[in-house]
């Protein structure tokens, strides 16, 4: 995750990045370790946060693209048996800027390959920080 490489800028904003997944907590704990994720990593198996942020689902054709099918075919040709997905492969992710429960911006993805760049996310965080600072000063 590229955001980890910008930890210094996030720290300068006094901002925390919170990763959220809907896989079982044990699987996400393994992922957090693999990524060496330095911030909180939360599990949302019921997808309540996904629903509150109105993150959409991808169409089947967007998930099972020719490229994805080719990956599975190559694995099968090499004698590997890929694990069947046990979760909703259509659920899309996204990002949100929050401050004490207030969601100021939501970045909803439109396809599995769609994701907002870190620079844009940092700009949104900086904007929120400036807005909340001016509100508290007023």
């Amino acid at each position, binding site marked *: *995750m590229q*955001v980890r490489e910008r930890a210094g800028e*996030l720290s300068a*904003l*006094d*901002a*925390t*990045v*919170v*990763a*959220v*997944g*809907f*896989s079982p*907590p044990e*699987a*996400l*704990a393994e992922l*957090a370790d693999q990524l060496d994720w330095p911030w*909180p*990593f*939360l*599990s*949302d198996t019921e997808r*309540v*946060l996904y629903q*509150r*942020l109105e*993150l959409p689902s991808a169409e089947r054709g967007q998930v099972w693209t020719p490229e994805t099918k080719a990956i599975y075919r190559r694995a099968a040709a090499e004698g590997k048996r890929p694990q069947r*997905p046990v*979760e*909703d*492969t259509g*659920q899309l*992710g*996204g*990002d*949100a*800027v*929050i*401050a*004490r*429960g*207030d*969601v*100021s*911006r*939501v*970045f*909803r*993805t*439109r396809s599995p390959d*769609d*994701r907002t760049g870190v620079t*844009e*996310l940092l700009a949104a*965080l900086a904007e*929120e*920080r400036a807005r*909340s600072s001016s509100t508290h000063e007023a």
Partner: protein
Amino acid sequence: MASAVSGLRLDGIVLTDVRDGTDVDLGRWPPLGLLTLLRHRY
């Protein structure tokens, strides 16, 4: 990517930290943060 200005609140959303099992109330914390929601595990 669709970006939207939001007036949503996260009251009542309490999720579990996968490392230590502690509850995190997103209606109150963090003071400033970026939530990054993943797709299914890879």
